[in-house]
């Protein structure tokens, strides 16, 4: 019995494990090989990642954008998650709609929507000019500001799910107890409610930060090539100035960095939070 159960388990698990092994893990090893063989064998590309001023500046910009985006996303997600979890039933429904509809709309459509709002002939500049508030269009897109806005928009739903789940897990009686002991509404919120959601906040921050690091579609469109982030740099190194070795080395460094980050913080990540 024990033996046949094992073989049956393997029979069910094997197809997916084999598929991902052959189509994902083995090719990733190929990328690792590229990083140490192109253009010549050795660790030269890793030295370039650590010392090349261009790569460095891209890494620093990426880190800065990711931190700003993570902070903005957490504040915005917290507010809407609170309404989604604790609002009246109408408020809850509206919040859910505003969270889920953008979540399921293609990243391209969303980036395009921001271009329609922020570009020189876009909605915001057209209105401000028509109202006589500005004479020259403001530079809102094709720069770092546009990238931050677009990424924040993309990542809010990913932060809402873990935060909302932490809020739902709060025991109502704790809040009642705080109230019974005479705490004011804002005291209950800041000293009791928010601390009880730290786990969800840390999980959300991790997901947002990790996703932001590896993101390249939104920055490529809203940055207009002027605000290159590390993922876009990989793309450019593969397709525009073929330097596969450097692209591969940056990829390996990214995976190592994120792997270490997630290994340290793994108790805050729950897979179910990733799909809403």
């Amino acid at each position, binding site marked *: 019995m024990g033996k046949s159960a094992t073989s049956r388990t393997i029979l069910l698990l094997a197809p997916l494990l084999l598929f991902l092994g052959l189509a994902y893990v083995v090719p990733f090893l190929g990328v690792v090989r590229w990083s140490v063989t192109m253009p010549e064998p050795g660790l030269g590309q890793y030295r370039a990642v650590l010392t090349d001023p261009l790569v460095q500046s891209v890494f620093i910009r990426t880190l800065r954008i990711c931190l700003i985006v993570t902070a903005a996303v957490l504040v915005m997600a917290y507010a809407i998650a609170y309404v989604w979890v604790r609002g009246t039933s109408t408020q809850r429904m509206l919040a859910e709609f505003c969270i889920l509809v953008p979540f399921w709309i293609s990243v391209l459509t969303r980036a395009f929507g921001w271009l329609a709002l922020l570009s020189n002939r876009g909605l915001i500049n057209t209105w401000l000019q028509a109202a006589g508030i500005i004479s020259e269009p403001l530079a809102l897109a094709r720069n770092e500001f546009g990238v931050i806005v677009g990424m924040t928009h993309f990542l809010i739903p990913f932060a809402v799910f873990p935060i909302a789940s932490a809020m739902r897990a709060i025991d109502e009686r704790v809040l009642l107890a705080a109230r019974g002991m005479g705490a004011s509404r804002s005291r209950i919120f800041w000293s009791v409610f928010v601390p009880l959601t730290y786990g969800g906040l840390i999980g959300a921050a991790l997901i947002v930060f990790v996703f932001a690091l590896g993101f*390249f579609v939104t920055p490529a469109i809203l940055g207009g090539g002027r605000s290159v982030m590390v993922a876009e740099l990989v793309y450019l190194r593969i397709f525009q100035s073929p330097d596969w070795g450097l692209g591969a080395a940056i990829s390996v460094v990214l995976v190592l960095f994120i792997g270490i980050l997630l290994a340290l913080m793994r108790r805050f990540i729950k897979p179910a939070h990733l799909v809403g």
Partner: protein
Amino acid sequence: MQSSRPGPVLLIIATAVALFLLMPLLAVVPVSFTPQRFLSMPTGTLSLRHYQALIDNPAWGQSVLLSLRIGILSSAIATVLATLFGLGIWMFQPRFSALLIGFVLLPLIVPPVVSAMTLYFLMTTLSAFNSYIGYDTWIGVALAHAVMITPFAVVLILVALFQVDRRIDLAARGLGANLTTRAFRIIIPNIKFGIATAALLSFVLSWEEIGVTLFITSVNAITLPRLMWMGLRDNIDPAIAAISVLLIIVTAVILALRIFIERRGTSETK
């Protein structure tokens, strides 16, 4: 609980966030009716020329058909693999379950650009051996999408499985049902809405996939997002606005369908 309802300050912030979330989707609508050939707000007259362009230019229709085909194949692969895997985890609770689940979620956690590179390596390698599955082929794209969307399908199916009452499976086992009967007659009927949701959402994810697709296609396998990308990079083609409006409508319908499936799912298990 009255005291913990959101207060006025929080409601104002949340409303601002909600507007922020919807704004870019709404902004696409007026732009799609511009009479100009460049991205602009229509002033005065409205025009349907960019919707007409979607019909006149056969590239749009071809890419829609290609994306449909790729979406259906990759969603089928992902759903079957994820269902088998989920059943294995749930029925036998093997040691190292958490590790195995972590492993299959890798494509979700690894930065998209790294996955794209990895699949680029796979497809160029496959192309060296055959001309059907590999770089810039539709089956190649479907396989690559399957890699990327399977983790989502796994999560959705595991969530559905963990809501199933283990005692019904134990009862079936006690009555002598074999593995196939338990899987097909007991467990799968109980998670059929989870499987349907997984298939639907896998399809949507493949339909929208751009990060990996950019790396593994060039001139033959032009999916819809790939075609949109080409119109977005340099001179923005307002036809993108027209297609975006249509996509937003389709997504809203699929979302409504999902909610409908889930409602039926919960009402039947009650």
